[in-house]
């Protein structure tokens, strides 16, 4: 079942299945199936296709890794590749879900969308570079390399999410309950993955079992958060706001910035005297 996780195929860190992890795993998979069902039932696949693909792929990943585990065994190379390969695909999809969310929320605000896209690209590129550098530094140890890459990518997901929310907050663009729930779920899972991998770096085998449970629990928490707004029909998307003409923006904004600059200078004058 899902909780039989192999951290690295040739390191001694192997998480064996226990009655507790099985008890945790079975309802978790059921919950994931319910989520996929609700996402399709509420027609979210038309609005957020990448998010739909992500939650569906998590279920597929559970099935595939379990099959490979059953066929080749826990210490096999195929299981190692199946587990970490699927994790790699899922973390990339989580990043794409953030981009999809950004597009869905900010698309009606054309000007803000351009700036947000830039902010998201810069944040994601910086954090991906960090992930590459950190994982390269840990390359001599294969377990360390995988964990470092995983942590770096989770950093990129949370960082991109923070950039999206900061832009929304600054321009006072409100998130609907479903988008907010998706953002919160992603943040919980990725933040816990960062903390979890960090502790595993330090304590390795001693923490392996807890690492596995924490990973599972954080994803289940995210699933429950995503399910909550889906219990009611998803409201129709609000009508796009009417945009002002570019000339009004060009006329007003220099006046605002001029006035604000003047106020800043005056306040600075007072403080320097």
């Amino acid at each position, binding site marked *: 079942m899902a909780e039989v996780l192999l951290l690295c195929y040739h390191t001694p860190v192997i998480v064996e299945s226990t009655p507790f992890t099985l008890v945790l795993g079975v309802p978790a998979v059921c919950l994931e199936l319910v989520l996929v069902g609700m996402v399709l039932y509420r027609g979210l696949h038309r609005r957020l296709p990448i998010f739909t693909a992500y939650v569906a792929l998590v279920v597929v990943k559970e099935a595939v890794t379990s099959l490979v585990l059953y066929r080749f065994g826990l210490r096999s190379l195929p299981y190692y590749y199946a587990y970490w390969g699927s994790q790699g695909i899922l973390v990339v999809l989580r990043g794409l879900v953030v981009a999809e969310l950004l597009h869905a929320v900010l698309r009606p605000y054309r*000007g803000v969308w351009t700036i947000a896209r830039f902010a998201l690209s810069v944040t994601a590129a910086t954090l991906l570079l960090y992930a590459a550098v950190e994982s390269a530094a840990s390359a001599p140890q294969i377990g360390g390399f995988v964990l470092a890459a995983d942590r770096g990518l989770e950093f990129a997901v949370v960082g991109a999410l923070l950039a999206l929310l900061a832009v929304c907050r600054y321009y006072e663009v409100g998130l609907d309950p479903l988008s907010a729930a998706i953002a919160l779920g992603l943040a919980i899972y990725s933040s816990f993955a960062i903390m979890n991998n960090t502790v595993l770096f330090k304590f390795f085998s001693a923490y392996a079992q807890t690492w596995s449970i924490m990973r599972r629990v954080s994803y289940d928490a995210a699933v429950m958060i995503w399910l909550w707004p889906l219990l009611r029909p998803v409201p129709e998307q609000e009508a796009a706001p009417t945009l002002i003409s570019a000339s009004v923006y060009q006329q007003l904004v220099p006046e605002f910035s001029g006035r604000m600059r003047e106020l800043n200078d005056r306040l600075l004058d007072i403080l320097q005297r």
Partner: protein
Amino acid sequence: MMATIFFVLLGIVMLAAVVILLRRPAAFLPSEARGAAINLEDLAARHSRYFPQMRQALFPADEAYLTGRASPVVLREWRDSRRRVMRGFLAGLYEDFARLNRMARAVSRVAPQLDNVREAELFWLGLRFRLFYRIALLELNLGHRPVNAYLRLAAMIGGLGSTLERAAAALAEESAVGRPSTLIS
């Protein structure tokens, strides 16, 4: 061990930041309730319009008159109350500045194309003003700076009303020519 603590704390801080950013601030609830609309009455420079009365109340001649005539205790109490009034007024002026800043962001929100340099400047100016304001308030509380110095700032903010009026007029004109702007209600 330090690295472990650092990354665990960073994870907690990032999660907390997401939760804080997801909480919708009360300040923009009324406008969000009507889509992207902003009530222009909310944006008017309310406090700076009392600038003439404040100038009268804080006129330096009063202090010159009281010095030597009133007892030191009375003079101290009078100065304290003046500072209290000034603090309240400064907080009001800050509110006016925040309204101007908010109006600028509201215009940007519904603009079809943004000027990156201007947007960056607006962001920077807002940030800088908040910082300077905190320092000014601290100095006022500590009594390091005479009250009169702040009157110059008040005079500057007093001109905000006209900027907002011009903005309102331009946006109203926009809706009159067949663009029912959601910015104004």
